[in-house]
């Protein structure tokens, strides 16, 4: 499908973030034998087949049993293993939610939960395989960092940092090939939004695979209207970069948020909750999946249907700037 393809040519193309995740983990596992990967028949989709072949002592397979996946991971982490628990995001954060809440977050076992093929990556496989609830449910649980890297650079940095982290974290990856979004800004830390395009007329806050269409929309705004839009990869939803939001509130310019998630309880609502309790007066709009039976189609078609696209974001920006 043309819609699923990267059409810009001025950004360097990379790999799917979940492939970079697997490669990074492999590079870590060579030197750190305390790294353990737990999978639920998910090593194929998680690109971890080579990992399993190279490090058979560092992979624990639990079969298709997500509750056990997270419980076992909690036990391994409690015993001092740097434990990455990998499963499609839809199953990991719904089927095993109670294990995430109690065994990981509440018991403070520093498991790195990795949701792969997230959002609507599975496209036409439908709602059973979509994870459009994970930000909302995990935001409502104390003691878990939520990170959604946008490009390969952020993914690699996030995995390296997560390996060192002594706290529960959820990493969410998609399977679409991603371009490198910024060569200038090569800074990454959890809880600090990464500005991948500068601008002072409007801000687009996005995360994960929606940062790229946000970037495209910003480019179109410049070419079409001479409007300079700032694009923020808000890769960490929790803790949110409130210092950056304070700056945006002070600027007072329109803000659009974009996410591959239900509008309910997601990135946009997290930003809105902070901004408007602080008295911000910015015009504000959330682009995401509305509370309805999700349209069927490929990821690209679903994105386009709900305006998670260059043209959708552009149209919303034009409306807000009027």
């Amino acid at each position, binding site marked *: 499908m043309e819609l699923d393809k990267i059409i810009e040519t001025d950004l360097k193309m990379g790999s799917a973030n979940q492939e970079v995740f697997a490669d990074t983990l492999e590079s870590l596992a060579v030197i750190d034998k305390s790294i353990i990967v737990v999978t639920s028949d998910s090593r194929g989709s998680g690109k971890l087949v080579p990992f399993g072949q190279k490090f058979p002592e560092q992979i624990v397979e639990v079969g298709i049993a997500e*509750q056990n996946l997270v419980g076992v991971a909690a036990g391994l982490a409690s015993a001092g293993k740097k434990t990455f628990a990998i499963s499609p995001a839809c199953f990991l954060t719904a089927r095993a939610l109670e294990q995430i809440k109690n065994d990981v977050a509440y018991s403070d076992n520093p498991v790195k939960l990795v949701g792969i093929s997230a959002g609507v990556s599975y496209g036409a496989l439908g709602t059973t395989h979509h994870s459009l609830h994970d930000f909302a449910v995990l935001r409502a649980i104390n003691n878990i960092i939520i990170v959604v890297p946008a490009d390969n650079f952020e993914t690699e940095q996030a995995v390296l940092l997560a390996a060192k982290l002594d706290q529960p974290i959820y990493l969410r990856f998609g399977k679409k090939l991603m371009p490198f979004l910024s060569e200038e800004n090569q800074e990454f830390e959890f809880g600090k939004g990464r500005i991948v395009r500068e601008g002072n007329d409007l801000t687009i806050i996005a995360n994960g695979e929606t940062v790229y269409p946000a970037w495209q929309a910003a480019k179109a705004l410049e070419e079409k209207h001479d409007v300079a839009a700032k694009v923020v990869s808000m890769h960490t939803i929790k803790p949110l970069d409130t210092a950056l939001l304070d700056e945006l509130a002070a600027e007072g310019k329109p803000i659009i948020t974009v996410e591959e998630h239900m509008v309910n309880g997601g990135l946009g609502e997290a930003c809105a909750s902070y901004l408007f309790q602080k008295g911000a007066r910015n015009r504000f709009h959330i682009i995401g999946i509305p509370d309805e039976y999700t349209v069927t189609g490929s990821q690209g078609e679903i994105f386009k249907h709900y305006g998670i696209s260059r043209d959708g974001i552009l149209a919303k920006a034009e409306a807000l700037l009027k």
Partner: protein
Amino acid sequence: MTDKDLKLKSVFLRKNLLKYIYKAKAGHTGGSLSCVDILNVLYNRVLNVKPNDFKNPDRDRYIQSKGHCVEALFVTLADRGFFPESDLETLCQYRSHYIGHPTKKVNGVEQNTGALGHGLPICVGEAIAAKLDKKTHRIFTLLGDGELPEGSNWEAFLSASHYKLDNLYAILDNNKQQITGSNQEVMNTDSLRDKLEAFGWSVREVDGHNLAELEEALNTGPFEVGKPNFIIAHTIKGKGISYMERVLKWHHGVPSPEQYDLALSELDAAEALI
């Protein structure tokens, strides 16, 4: 500690758990009384754990999956010196760490439990880690029979035998009752031994109030090399207090002053016979 002292300890722990349930006006009385002998044997004869060095990586692990019977655990830990018994005066009070389920805020508690079907999967992770690191410590969990229908237990049963975790010991407090009625009425798990053996576990059955039998089972092992160990401890809900034994309402009943006095006098009489 002599065998006689161990028996006296069981009576003491029963008195204490009733005391704090009575004071807090809350607690899972029947289930605490059914599992307290198991805890007594674990903490006084089996587990290699030290109050002043609890985080030692080579310690045995005990994770109480049936977290609601926390009163039995708390009085046992206090008696072993993990914290001053006077801390239990705050049981279930505002801002106390001594709440109605185990939490790691309390010295001696491995994991925050309470939601059922969670203890065993965590133990599987601990047991795999111990095997990977070639450690010899053992991993124990206490399951309630009412939590057996939780699917996560059966996921864990599969993985424990798949990974040949003979360093793992699951103890079932088989008091045969749960909040709504008997296990058989609520959700029948009969032929449990056959089920577990079919899942690849090595199973033993003991009288869960016979301290010597418990000790023998818990200190033997693995029962079979390469198989996880399951101990069905046949117990009586409300054990030791005549009017509580096998009476459903004592699942989480709190005694009246008269009932409390009667319970203590029964325990005094039991003590005198030891």
